């Protein structure tokens, strides 16, 4: 078997690379100017990273506490956080 870097962790090499490349391509299909492309790429990259971290937190709680109640509560808190973040972004135009 082989890996890109010996003994590395996919969460620090492949996953960030995946997020960066997806964000760049996605934003370049939405905008034409480089400034807008890079701004949108950073925004999408952060959103993707936050979303994946949120899923990671929910799975960690499910695994560590083995409680459906706590897991549902965490999922609801994170869903409210994302809705609030979206509303804030829309209101500030960022």
């Amino acid at each position, binding site marked *: *078997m082989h890996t890109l870097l010996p003994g590395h962790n996919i969460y620090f090499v*492949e996953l960030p*690379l995946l997020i960066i*490349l997806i964000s760049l*391509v996605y934003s*370049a*299909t*939405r905008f*034409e*100017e480089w400034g807008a492309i890079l701004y949108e790429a950073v925004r999408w990259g952060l959103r993707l990273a936050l979303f994946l971290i949120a899923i990671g937190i929910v799975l960690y709680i499910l695994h560590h506490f083995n409680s459906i109640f706590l897991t549902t509560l965490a999922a609801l808190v994170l869903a409210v956080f994302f809705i609030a973040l979206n509303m804030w972004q829309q209101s500030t135009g960022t």
Partner: protein
Amino acid sequence: MSSAASSTNSALLPDRSGDPTAAVLSYLIPGLGQIYQGRIGKGILFFVCIYTLFFIGVYLGSGTVQLQHGDEVETYSVSSNVYLPDTADQNNPFNLPRLAANLYNRPQFAGQFWVGIAAWPAIWQYLNYDRRQESGDPLLGNFERTPSEAALNAVHTSGNKLLELAWVFTVIAGVLNVMVIYDALAGPAFLPVEAEEDKTTR
């Protein structure tokens, strides 16, 4: 300077009615359609990003392991995770046509296909697959050839999560290229302001 640069870019944008030649070129090689239109920077960006995703996926999804069976050491190899196995005879719950059943059994290839020429060896291997040829296809060898079930099992059980992440890379590369093809066909989703004004006054 920036407005001059952006107005130059606007002039290069395809008409909203579509540029099929550029779309086909972008299907064949990601970003080639944009380069053909003169949007060279964006074309190179698409080419580098999509081929990086795709070939890293191919690289991570391949592997060789050696397993000891008694006194014998057997080597199992998986050359790539881009392949379409002919499994319609083994599983076809909806009586689909052969190709559709094979895609139903390996839906990843429906995404990988859109990366263009880079996925064509898998189509060649699918059309010319002969289980008895252990050395693979005379032209392409084992590249993008359906691996044997024993090889898949051996490599997967010896590997780690990377193998699962690997096909995600290749599928995402293909699916992103659909957006790149659309960008070549009709331009970006949001046009620069002066290009928008230009199109409305035409």
